[in-house]
Every structure is written in C-alpha cells, then in structure tokens.
C-alpha cells in the first residue's frame, strides 16, 4: 500500500510517495488549483500513477487556514470576554512594528469590535469566583449572536486558565439559543496565562473553524469519489500529524502546516546522517527565505509565533522565520547611493526580467543567469531572456558605478549576506552557535546560494538533499502523529507538591494516549514525553525543560532544576543561582510512531554525470566550470568547484575551492572550509 505526502503550495502541488510493500518511491509536481485546491491534490496523485484505492495513508500539508487569516477571508465570528477586556485582541501589547514610521497602521483584529461582547463575570488569580456569570447578560449576548447569524464564537475570560467554569457556562447559554454555532473556549484552546496570547489564539480558532470544515469536507469527498479508503492525516505546525477530524476542530494548530513538511525532512536527514545531528534548514523561494533549526532529529519549537504584528498564535509551533529574500528580490540603488537587494520582490508577476513577463528591474535570478549559474533554457523548460536581463543590469550598474557583471556578482553577495544575517538572528535568538551546524538548503533556488550564505556565517559544510525539489511532500511521509497537551501550574519548584505534579502528568499522559488511540495508533506505538515551562521567579519568559517519566521524587525534582539551569543558559546565555526556579505549566507530548520512508541507497542513474561545461563568474573572473546531472552522480563521487549540479527541480552552485561529495543516499555534501577566514 502507498503512503503519500502532499504539499499544496502557492504555485505547485508536490507529491512524494512510497510503497510499503515494493519499497518503490515516486514524486510528482502539478499546478495548484486555486479555485479548489482539492482538485490539485487528486491531480498530483494521478500524475504519480498511484491508484487511490491503494493508498493507506495520505499526509497533507495545507496553508488554507493561514491564507484565510492573512486576508481575513472567513465568515464573521464573535467573541465574548470579561468586562474591561473587550479590546485585548485589538490593543495587543501597544507597541509598534516600525520605530520611526509615522504613517504605520496595525493589522486588523481577527474579530471585529462590533461582534465583541462583554459580560460582568470575574474569576481571580487563584481560580476563585469573584463575580458569578450573570445569566441575563449572557442570554442577551447569545441573542445578539443569533440576531447577527454568527456561526462561530470565541469565549475568553480573564484567569480562565486557572478555572474555566464560567467559559463552560457561557458556552451552554450560547448553545441554548444557537445550537448549531461553534463555541470555542480559551480554557480549552490553550489554558495558559497571559490574556493577549490566549484570547487571540482562541479568536483564530473561532475564525478558521468554518473555513477548514468546508475545505476538509470537500477534500475528503473528492478523494472518496476517486476510491480513496485510507486514512487522511494533516500536518500540524508542531511538526507532527493528526487525524482530519481533530484538524477540523483545531485549525490554530495548522498555521505552519505547509512549511512543516520541509522541516520534517531536515529532521529525517539529521537522523539519517549521524555526523550531522544539527541542521540549519533553509528554503529559498521566489519571494521569501525561510529558516529553522533542527537538532537531533527535531525542529526547535516556539510558543511566540506571530501571524502578523502582535497577532500571536501560542500553540507549540516549529520556529520557522521568514524574511523577504529570494529569487525575485530586486536590486536597486537607494537615496544615499548604495546598492541594495530586496526586500521588495518582483514575485511571480512580473517576475525576473529574464522571464520576459514585463519585469524591468534586475532580480537575483537575473543576476544568477548573467553569472552563468542558471542554464538559459532551464533544461529546455523555457527560454530565458538573457539580453533583457543584461540590459536591466547595465542600467543598474551605471547607477552603482560598476560593470554589469560586477553588479550581478555584488547582488548575489549582498542578497546572500542578508540571508546570512537572517539565519544568524534565528540562531542567536535561540542561543545557538552557527559553527555547531551544517546548512541544508531546500527549494529550487536554495543550493544556488547556500555556499555563500554558509561562508558569510563561517559554517564549513552545506548539504543539498536529493529530494530538495519536493522537500515538504517527502517530509510529510516521514512524520509521526503528535499531540501537545498542557496544563497551567504556577509554583516555585521549592513549593511544588509532588503528588499534584504526578497527578497532573498522569492525566495529561492518559489524555494524549486517548487522542492517539482515537486516531488509530496502537498503544505500543505511542510514546509520551513530559516537559515543563519554567522560569526564574520574577522573570516573564519561560523555557521548555524536559522532565523525566514516571513517578516524580525529590531527587527527580533536583534533576529538573539542574536541567532548567542548563536549558536557560543555552537559550538565554545566562543562568543564576540567585533566583528560584518556578514551574509555569506542565506539558506532555504524545507521539504516535509511524513508518518513515526507508532510505534508498542510490547507485546513480547510470548515465554520464558530466552534462557539459560553461563559463561561470566567481570572485571577479570567469571560470570554465563543469555541469553535472545530480541524479547521475554515483555515491562517493567527489566533485570540485567551481561547478554546477543540476537536478530535476533544483540546482546547486559550488564556488571555487568547494568540494562536493555524494553520500550513499544521493545527498550532496559540500565542504567550503577552504573559503573561510580563521574563526574569531
């Protein structure tokens, strides 16, 4: 039976699949069908010649929820809060995105103010009722919701992370009047403190539930009508998968569902290549450059993700950062006369000048073409307008005072420097040292720049994975089922009651197992891992600290404190014995193990690996450079830069002095250590 991974992107729908009997692997790429993305999913399966009835598992990454949120394209939702907190999701944290921009505006709130209601209930910080929920007032709100025909409501009360009883009461009253309306509670969405994050995340769930219900039902119907009888699993932002029934009701967990597959592939690589446990995952697209960190098989997780400025989604999410740098980034001269690259992008329309679609400003892609790094027919797929690109570059060069080719080379150096700064920011914000990592490049254009980005960061090695062109779809097939459960428990560790901790952890574990079993995972394939969000008393940020399994004892607690100090030191650069550690919340991650695609040892396609040679510009001079067919390279092959390695959906550039070797799975490992300055 086939296990199929499908990633629906903005332009292409990618598929990777493997047969757990024959071990055969296939991939396909079709255009995304924007009017109904389910059509593209079926098209990709057909393009790969997989009978739908022969699919056991279909793992699917989707950006539908994120797209709906960004353009606020969903039916009006309502929100009910405690008196005085109607505007928590709109005022946010009262700071601005750009320090000196007098004209800036803030993103629109997820739920309009006119549909945000308040009630006079109050629960205090200890979970005690100060004012009961006034039933008359609650009924009045429920009637307004009915009057406006609203189908989805977020209920978010102050201190409900400690006691959600009033939220439950409110839901019952809304349901009395509106039995078919979705009502989601902040105490169920994410019962953790700090109202802005919890309220906003609850609003996100309320807003996107109706959208995802429609999308998933359409997708299920489309698949079933073609004979699909397997299990449909959805990629979550956390880097795990879940059943479609769960996904429909928890759309806030799908924000990074699209990019999560690529990170999962990086995780798969770090398990496959024991010499590289730490990987920086980078993906260069047309307009954006994504970065994340993978350690020991798993992507780092954040709870501080913002969908837009001050619109946080506080569920555990892969820590993926995106900056505006990519193949479409435009070169320009600023008001002070300096050469700049991006963040403005020509996008796909008009696109780079060489696409001939009306673009007039030179882009990174145009620069690569002029430097000889892109083949002018893209392997026969289209004819690029080199003369147009050259003319555009010359116009820019005249402003800069360099030759066209120097300007093109400069654009790549500047563009790669911008990417390197983005990577460094991610590493530094997580307390990691670049020198402990290998840089992995995904996406069609990633490996054209990876060596230069790595050089700027003094990272000696780069990996170009064999499936980089369909990375997210491949990663989808390598993911486990995963649920992250959390309960608030604020207590200095010294005052913690062990019996309480044991009870809370056992309950979370039982809940995680129940969720996974409901999704068809058998008990022996389920692992649970305990964590605690911890901080120093008086601090306002937490770090996630691993907690040992089994019944906690006083010596176990001492071990947790030790671990906390060391995790804090790694993430924040400091630890202190002057401050007492405290628990803020307890978490359990339930993992339902699935079979990842077995690594296939490649023998090379048997064809001639050298496709030809051409002049390529590096470091101020033209170099005659070999061009290789990446799929024909045999294991242990060694290739010397300068050279180009072309794949079906991607291309790698090796500068002079770089040395590439092919591992037994077909991944290209590039060593650039001869180009690095000695470390400072």
């Amino acid at each position, binding site marked *: 039976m086939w296990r199929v991974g499908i990633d629906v992107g903005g332009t292409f729908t990618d598929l990777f699949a493997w047969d757990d009997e024959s071990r055969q692997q296939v991939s396909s790429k079709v255009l995304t069908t924007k009017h109904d993305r389910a059509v593209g999913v079926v098209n990709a399966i057909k393009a790969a010649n997989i009978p739908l009835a022969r699919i056991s598992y279909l793992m699917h990454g989707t950006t539908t929820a994120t797209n709906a949120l960004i353009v606020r394209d969903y039916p009006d939702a309502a929100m009910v809060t405690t*008196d005085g907190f109607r505007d928590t999701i709109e005022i946010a944290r009262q700071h*601005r995105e750009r320090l*000196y921009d007098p004209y800036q505006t803030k993103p629109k709130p997820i739920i309009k103010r006119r549909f945000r209601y308040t009630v006079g209930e109050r629960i205090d910080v200890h979970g005690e009722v100060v004012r009961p929920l006034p039933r008359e007032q609650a009924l009045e709100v429920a009637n307004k919701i009915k009057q406006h025909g609203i189908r989805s409501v977020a209920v978010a009360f102050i201190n409900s992370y400690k006691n959600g009883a009033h939220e439950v009461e409110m839901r019952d009253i809304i349901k009395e009047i509106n039995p078919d309306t979705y009502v989601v509670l902040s105490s169920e969405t994410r019962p953790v403190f700090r109202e802005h994050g919890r309220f906003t995340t609850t609003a996100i769930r309320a807003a996107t539930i109706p959208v995802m219900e429609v999308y998933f039902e359409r997708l299920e119907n489309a698949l079933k009508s073609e004979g699909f009888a397997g299990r449909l699993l959805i990629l979550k932002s956390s880097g795990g998968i879940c059943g479609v029934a769960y996904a429909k009701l928890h759309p806030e967990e799908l924000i990074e569902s699209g990019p999560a597959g690529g990170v999962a592939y990086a995780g798969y690589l770090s398990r496959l290549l024991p010499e590289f446990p730490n990987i920086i995952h980078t993906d260069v697209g047309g307009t954006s450059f994504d970065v994340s960190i993978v350690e020991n098989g798993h992507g780092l997780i954040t709870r501080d993700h913002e969908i837009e400025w001050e619109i946080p989604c506080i569920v555990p999410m892969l820590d993926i950062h995106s900056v505006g740098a990519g193949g479409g980034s435009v070169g320009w001269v600023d008001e002070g006369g300096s050469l700049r690259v991006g963040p403005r992008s020509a996008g796909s329309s008009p696109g780079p000048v060489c696409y001939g679609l009306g673009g007039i400003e030179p882009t990174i892609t145009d620069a690569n073409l002029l430097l000889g790094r892109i083949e002018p027919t893209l392997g026969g797929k289209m004819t690029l307008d080199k003369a147009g690109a050259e003319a555009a570059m010359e116009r820019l060069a005249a402003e800069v*005072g360099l030759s066209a080719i120097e300007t093109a080379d400069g654009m790549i150096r500047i563009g790669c420097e911008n990417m390197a700064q983005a990577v460094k920011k991610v590493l*530094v914000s997580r307390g990691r040292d670049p020198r402990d990592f290998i840089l992995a490049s995904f996406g069609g254009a990633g490996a054209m720049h990876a060596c230069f980005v790595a050089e700027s960061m003094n990272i000696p090695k780069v990996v170009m994975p064999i499936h980089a062109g369909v990375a997210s779809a491949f990663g989808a097939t390598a993911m486990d089922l995963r649920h992250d459960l959390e309960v608030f428990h604020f207590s200095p560790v010294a005052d913690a009651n062990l019996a309480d901790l044991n009870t809370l952890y056992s309950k979370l574990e039982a809940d995680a197992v129940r969720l996974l079993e409901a999704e068809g995972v058998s008990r022996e394939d389920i692992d649970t891992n305990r964590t605690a969000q911890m901080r120093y008393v008086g601090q*306002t940020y937490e770090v996630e600290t691993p907690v040992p399994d089994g019944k906690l004892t006083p010596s176990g607690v001492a071990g947790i404190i030790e671990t906390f100090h060391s995790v804090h030191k790694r993430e924040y650069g400091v630890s*202190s014995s002057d401050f007492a550690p405290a628990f803020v919340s307890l978490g359990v991650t339930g993992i339902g193990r699935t079979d990842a695609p077995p690594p296939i040892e490649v023998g090379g396609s048997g064809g001639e690996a050298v496709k030809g040679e051409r002049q390529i510009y590096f470091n101020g001079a033209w170099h005659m450079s070999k061009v290789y067919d990446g799929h024909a390279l045999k294991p242990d092959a060694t290739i010397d830069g300068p050279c180009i390695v072309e794949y079906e959906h991607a291309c790698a550039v090796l500068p002079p002095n770089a040395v590439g070797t092919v591992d037994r799975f077909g991944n290209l490992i590039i060593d650039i250590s001869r180009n690095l300055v000695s470390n400072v």
Partner: protein
Amino acid sequence: MDKKVTVDTSVIEQTKVDPVTFEVLRSIFEYASDRMTTVLQRASFSPILADMIDFSNAIYDYECQLLSQAANCPIHLAAMKYSAEAIIEKFGIANIHEGDIICVNDPYKGGTHINDITFLTPIYFEKELLGFSVSRGHWMDLGGGAAGGQAFAGTHIAGEGLRLPPVKVYERGVMRDDIVEIMVNNTRTPHFVKGDLQAHVGCLRAAAQEMQRAAAKYGIVTLKAAMKQLQEYTERIVRKSIVEIPDGVYEGEDYADTDGFSTKPIEIKVKLIVKGSDITVDFSGTDSVVKGAINSPFANTASAALYSLQFFLAPHAPQNQGMFNPIKIVVPEGSWLNAKWPAPTIGCTTLTSAKITSAIWQALAKAIPERVTGSTSADCNWFVSSVIAPNGATDVFSDLPAGGWGATPYNDGMNVTEDPLGNCMNMPAETAELLFPIAYEAFELRQDSAGPGKFRGGLGAVFKVRYLADGELSMETARTLAGSPGVAGGQHSDVQRQIKIYKDGRREVIGGLDEQGNWKSPLLCGHPFAYGETFMFESTGGGGYGNPWERDAAQVREDVLDEYVSLQAARERYGVVIDPATMLIDEAATARMRASMVEKAAA
C-alpha cells in the same frame, strides 16, 4: 599600556570601500547592534528590560561617533552619545582598557533620568581600537524618594536616586564588587542588580565579537573606512530630505500642564530654522527651569529633538552620526530644557520629551503640512506603585497605559500605542495579578477620545486596576487641560484624567479636570490607595488630520458600528446623521449638517 588606534586617519580617509563590500558591512553593523538587543532582552532579569524592553544599544566608531544603533526607545537615540563622550572625557582613551566596562547615569553627563543607566566597553582587534559598544537600560529602581525614583514632590536631584559619575564597574574583565555593592545598597530591587548587569555585559561583548569578526574578514582599514563612509552616506540622505523642506522659520509650541507646583502650564517654544540642507532647532522663548521634577538636561532635549525630526527626515536610513551633523540644537541657558544641577529631572524622558516632539511636529506641520501627522497623546503615562505583598514585603509594580497616535494625511492614527519616544509593551493583566496583590479591571478603547478629522486620531484607553493591598502610586502625565492638537483642520482629542474609585463606587478625580471644571495636578507622588480602591486612568487619543466633515460618511458609520465613535459624536463632530433604529445614514440630514459645519468654519 595598550596600543591604541595605530592606523593613520589619512590612510582611512583615502581608502575607498567598493560598493558591494560597503553594503555587506552596512548589513553587518546593523546586525551587530540588533544582536545586542536580542541578548539583552533574553538575558535580563527585571520585567522592565525583559518584558517592557525599555533599553537601547549602540556601537560607536573609534572616534566615538555613532556607527549603528538598535534604539528600542528613540529617546535614547542621541543621549547615549553624550554619555559615551562623558565617559571618554573623564578617563581618556588611553586609560580605557580591553575588558573595562564603564557606567554612568548622571543626568547632567549625558543621562536622561536617573533610572537610565549606560554601560560602555571598548572594542579591540589585534590591539587596535575599533570602537565602543554601549548599552543603556532603564533600571527599575535606583533609590530616591519614591518607588522607581518617581519623586514628583521632590525639588532636588538628590531625591531621585543614586547618581553615578562615569565609573569602572569592570576593570580588565574583572567585576568591581565595591561598585556593584553601592548599586545593590541603593535600590528597592537589589535582586535584579547582578542579573541585569550581566545581561548588559553579555550584550556589549556580543557586539564586540561581531566587529572583531568583521575586522578579521575585511581588514581593519576597510572596516574603519566603511564606518566613516556609512556616516557620510546617512548624512547625504538626511541632507537631501532637508533640502526638500522649503527654507524658512517655522514655530511650534506645546506645554506640560504643571511641574506639580505651578498653577499655569510650562511652555516649550521651538523654532525650526531651515536653510538649504541644514536645520537649527532653537528653543529660545521656552520657560525657565522649574521647581518640579520635569526639567530636561541638554542630552535629553537634544535626543528628543533629533528623534522627532528622524520620523520625517530619514526614518529608514542607518542610524549614525550622519543624522546629527546637519542639525544644530540651541537650548538657552537657564531654561527648563537645559537643566543643570541640582534641578530634578525624573520626568524628562517620559513626559518632557513627548512634549518636545509635539512642539516640533506642529512646527513641521507649517513647513510640510502634506506630510505631518496630528499630535500623539504625547505621554508615556508611566506609573509606578508600591504595594505591600501578603508576606509584608514591599513590591514595586509598574505599567504604562498608552494613548492614541495622531491621524496622518493617509490614514487614521493608531489606537493605544506607546508614544514615539519609546516602544515599550504594557503589562499583561494575568501576569500582573500573578505577581502583585492587584486586579486589572479594564484596559480597553475609550470611545470618542480621539481627535476628529478627515482622518481620525487613534483612540486612547480606559485603564483600571484595583488594589488588593495598600499601596502608593506615583505618575506623571499631562494633556489634562486640552487634548492632542490636530493639524490641517483636524481637531483636538479629549483630555486625560486620573480617578480614584472608592470601595463604595464613589469616584474622585485626583488628576485633571472634574465635572465641575476643577483641576488637579496630574503629577501624582506617592498617592495612597487602600485595599479595595481602584485607580482609573483615561488616556487620550491622537489629534485629527483634515476637516472632519470631509471624512467619508460610510467610514464614520463603520466607526459607529464598531463603537469607536458614538452616534452623538458622529452627528455633532463629523456631521453624519445615523438613524439609531436602522443604523443607516440619513443622507439628506447629513448633507445639511455638513454644509452648516463648513459655513461655521468659514465664518
């Protein structure tokens, strides 16, 4: 003795950095100061640094000229330079060694208010001085007559806390325990001192490391030449944008309602003299030094003037010395904007600098009305309160509920956003309740608080916090006599007010105007609140832009539906008549209403 600055300056001047290397180094300089911010925020222990990010970091070149800055608080922008200069002047470059860290918070030596403390370390590479990294943070409490130094009843700097001259807190990499002990002994929050100090040290070292890497890769001469060329680059951008402002003299004014003692407002008068590519900011005519704690030392005044102009001159240019060169600042001796010892200054950053911005923007509005926005609420509304924790210990709790920003020629102003002078975050209610014996009762938008206009100011807020223990609250604010001015026909916002709500629900205005028109000073110093009493603050919105009757009526209706604007205000202030039953616009009545508004304005 260490070797210092061995490369001849003429060599640096003659080195032309190629455009690509220039751009790459520009990006590295910017990253280096950004990295300081990340490290300081992550590593600091006190909420005012870690959660409210009240700090800024910068790198100066080998001649102590600003090279790069990550100013989270614009008010720190230029003032840090004066602190760095005061340090170098005191010790001399020859006596500042690798591993030294020197601090200063003296308001008269480049400081702003006493709580802003500045740390400096030299950056060396192969014995060559590359420059200095400098970090300035607001420390929660450095002593003084009230929690957080907020001694508004005080009339002498000595009452505001520990005033440190430039002093080495690390000598050649070793911490000086005696100095740290002085800090620890002079604060209400001694437990934060070592943690926050280490965070500043970590961030200074992070910048040094980035600069050393750049020197190793590109060479000392290229690096130093790029520093100078980057400053020239910014100066070019700034001068270009000044040339676009018509030559002339433009006047603006604003005022603080009181210094806590005076019964009349304290005025700021500013003249912007624009000539070619130069601007002189002249504060002649401004009131004399005052008794209360809102006097501004020169560094604070200059910093406020520079960041205020930065919004309209070169908001995107790299922040370095090049921004300052075309701008001359004149502050008359003896004025309240040129405070000298022993004038108290604790309110200068949060209150006075906001008024300086407002005055300068109003002057600019006369020069470039098509670009300038309505005035912001022009206050941080920073309050600090002691509260007696259940265990009897005194704790210090603080927040800064913002007001709205002015409307712009293109869009409505931002609702409830920290004043231009800073960019601090508020305190989440659930965090505050967990840490302090208090209960947040509200932080929500305040209907009709913004100045009407073709574009509306951003709204202010209603803020309420109830004491669950006895405490004393200090706060400085203004805009209690009149709201934020509008521009180009845009109108004033509403006034601000401080209110005490007693246990029985009775309300008393304790700062600002009450319903009878009686006014009380909004500079509260140790104002007592008993268990069960509530502090309520109404912040104001921003001023409007353009005539309110030109605002799209459909947009006014949207505002009414969202309750940003009341039905009554829609009618009386925008001339839009909406039927309360159907919520539809009465087009005929609206046309009549607006015609009479135009007529009235013409008369």
